[in-house]
């Protein structure tokens, strides 16, 4: 590849042909301010519409300033990123954006995390010289996501995530000129659209135009109600990211501190979604082996591959887009919902509390979990199995609100019986983890032999679609893995056209799996954060004494005391579900 020589801010730099000015500047430590641009390195995710014009630089010999995020370097270029002309243009552009942006920073949900606020600070803007019309658009509230497009800066990151990465196609720029907004078709509300609530739009929005529905107030009210027993479950991916909210390095495992903080917040029992993840493996693993053995015995009615069903955005995705295949995913509920059902039917008996007096709170890396917990089928006579699902970010704000000094908290342990988990439960948080956990159990049940090594490196990684073959004592089990709904779509289309030959497929909606979920601390375009969380998840697994779900003593006890065996009638009733056709049918 040809190398290009150029000068940026009087410093010489040599970069590969095809590099943008923005990237070339970064190589020599010059950070040109940006707003619409976002690149998640190594994940193939990039947004550079060149629309905001904040990153303009002066190129010697050119009449116009060049947007550095989309302008490729050329031999001999002489660039100034901070000439008076570039600075003035950058300030003018930012002031114009601010002139049509609500100035309610003090009370805004994104204050302190807002990239527009950061930009205004960085550029030292103290006055807005332009007064003009302000957008007046209605707020759109759904079960999981709030759209406040008055705060939209038209960076189009959400649109890129929704269309290119997730291929969900809900968000698009509509209308023209000053009236232009990013909205669903016909400007309908999100809850009427095919939105999956994956929350990747929320994860990349630079401002508060897209945020999660805030349930912290409801949780505080429940905690302060003496007539309620309030229990909490924490998803695996939360412990690998929560520390970031307290200025800890990404990849710090804060499991013990998180438990300690939850206890201080006043939860009566601190339990673990990892326990329910182990339970999921018992059910889903059994379902896999049942379908597999029927298939091997020549039963033509048995559908393979079996697809995982832990991810609520993925479930909603296939209900809208692939309803003809709704019999293929496992019927197993997600760990969050399994936990809720066990808590409200088994744990209530144990502690002798009435269902309506038990409040189940989930801490999730996800915004779709809010929607999932509100689905009708997961409630009994109007009382939901999971009362409130809050994100990692919302938990952090609760901890701050309660004046808890997170970093100096002692490490504490989960309560029993729903707090015990294995390494298999922990790895649910990363792409490939669910299927690895399933393989650990399915292998031993199917072959009757103990695994020498429980680590299946071939199932791990960041590649969007991965495949592996695992030797089940003579049977080659073919496994597929996809994260990101666009990748899931590819695997589904292969199944539909009969090209797929997998036995089992794991699908997660968010890039990286739950660690990259829409409810996690904002990564602000830094993909290394997600990688570090992944390493933390596998570290937690390696540190566990028990690493196979079927060896979790409390899971065994739960079956003995209450459920009977996996896929029993009771298990079916409480731990399995059915899916719905949510597609639009056009007919005359």
């Amino acid at each position: 590849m040809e190398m290009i020589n150029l000068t940026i801010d009087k410093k010489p730099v040599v970069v590969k042909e095809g590099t943008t000015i923005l990237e070339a500047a970064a190589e020599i430590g010059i950070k040109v301010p940006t707003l619409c641009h976002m690149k998640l390195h190594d994940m193939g995710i990039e947004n550079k519409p060149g629309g905001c014009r904040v990153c303009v630089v002066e190129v010697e010999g050119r009449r116009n300033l060049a947007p550095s995020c989309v302008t490729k370097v050329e031999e001999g270029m002489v660039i100034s990123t901070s000439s008076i002309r570039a600075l003035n243009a950058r300030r003018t552009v930012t002031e114009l954006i601010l002139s049509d942006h609500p100035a309610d920073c003090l009370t805004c949900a994104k204050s302190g995390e807002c990239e527009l606020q950061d930009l205004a600070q960085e550029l030292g803007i103290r006055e807005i010289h332009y007064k003009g019309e302000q957008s007046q658009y209605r707020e759109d509230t759904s079960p999981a996501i709030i759209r406040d497009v008055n705060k939209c800066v038209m960076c189009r990151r959400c649109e890129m995530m929704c269309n290119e990465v997730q291929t969900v196609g809900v968000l698009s720029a509509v209308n023209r000129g000053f009236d232009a907004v990013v909205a669903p078709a016909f400007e309908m509300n999100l809850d009427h659209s095919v939105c999956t609530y994956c929350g990747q739009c929320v994860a990349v929005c630079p401002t508060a135009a897209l945020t999660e529905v805030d349930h912290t107030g409801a949780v505080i009210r429940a905690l302060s109600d003496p007539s309620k027993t309030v229990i909490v479950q924490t998803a695996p991916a939360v412990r690998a990211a929560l520390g970031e909210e307290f200025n800890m390095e990404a990849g710090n495992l804060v499991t013990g501190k998180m438990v300690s903080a939850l206890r201080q917040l006043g939860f009566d029992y601190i339990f673990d979604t990892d326990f329910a993840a182990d339970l999921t493996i018992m059910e889903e693993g059994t379902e896999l082996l049942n379908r597999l053995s029927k298939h091997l015995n020549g039963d033509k009615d048995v559908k393979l591959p079996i697809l995982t069903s832990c991810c609520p955005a993925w479930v909603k995705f296939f209900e809208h887009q692939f309803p003809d295949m709704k019999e293929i995913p496992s019927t197993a509920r997600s760990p969050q919902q399994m936990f809720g059902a066990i808590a409200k039917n088994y744990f209530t008996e144990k502690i002798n509390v009435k269902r309506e007096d038990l409040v189940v709170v989930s801490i999730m890396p996800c915004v779709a979990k809010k929607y999932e917990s509100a689905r009708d089928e997961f409630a009994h006579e109007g009382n939901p199995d999971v009362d409130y699902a809050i994100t990692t970010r919302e938990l952090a704000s609760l901890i701050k609100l309660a004046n808890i000094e997170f970093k100096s908290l002692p490490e504490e342990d989960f309560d029993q019986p729903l707090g015990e988990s294995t390494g298999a439960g922990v790895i649910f948080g990363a792409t490939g983890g669910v299927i690895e956990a399933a393989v650990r159990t399915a292998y031993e049940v199917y072959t009757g032999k103990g695994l020498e090594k429980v680590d299946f490196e071939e199932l791990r990684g960041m590649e969007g679609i991965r495949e592996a073959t695992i030797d089940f004592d003579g049977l080659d089990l073919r496994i597929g893995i996809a994260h990101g709904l666009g990748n899931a779509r590819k695997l589904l289309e292969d199944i539909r056209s009969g090209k797929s030959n997998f036995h089992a497929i794991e699908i997660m909606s968010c890039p990286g799996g739950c660690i990259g979920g829409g409810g996690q601390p904002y990564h602000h375009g830094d993909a290394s954060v997600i990688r570090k969380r992944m390493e933390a998840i596998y570290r937690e697994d390696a540190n566990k004494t028990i690493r196979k779900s079927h060896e979790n003593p409390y899971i065994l006890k739960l079956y003995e005391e209450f459920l009977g065996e996996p896929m029993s009638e009771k298990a079916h009733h409480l731990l399995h579900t059915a899916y719905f056709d949510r597609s639009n049918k056009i007919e005359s």
Partner: protein
Amino acid sequence: MPKIKLAEKTINIVKEICAKYDNNEGELINVLHNVQAKLGYLPAEVQELIAKELNSSVAKVYGVVTFYSFFTMTPMGEFPISICMGTACYVRGAEQVLDEFKRQLKLEIGKTTEDGKFSISCLRCVGACGLAPVVMVGEKVYGRVSPQQVRKIIAEYQDGCPSS
């Protein structure tokens, strides 16, 4: 499962046009042009069908429909009135002509009279600047239109088709 109702004839027209363009998403604008020419407008249900046929998202289709002022989601009148707002027509008084049409028909731009007869839209340059200001009613072109002539033009269509 939400159902979208469309007349069978409409479904066939849309499907045929999409097929003519090989159901290629890249031909979206051409498809919209053709469908609007046939149906007069692009209602939501039709956009849903186009998105399905072209394997695109309905948000994207709606985005294009709302970006170009040529496309409309409200049915046009039997006699659609278009007033050219191009530079030449504008400086020769097109705005006053437009205002007169709006006043006489009690109609806003993009809307249709209750009896479905007339609708008003603006367009940009029909390439007859020598005749500025230009008004089109359906395919018929009127040149050098003054506000005083507006009543007469409307009257031509009031009782059905004009003689000429």
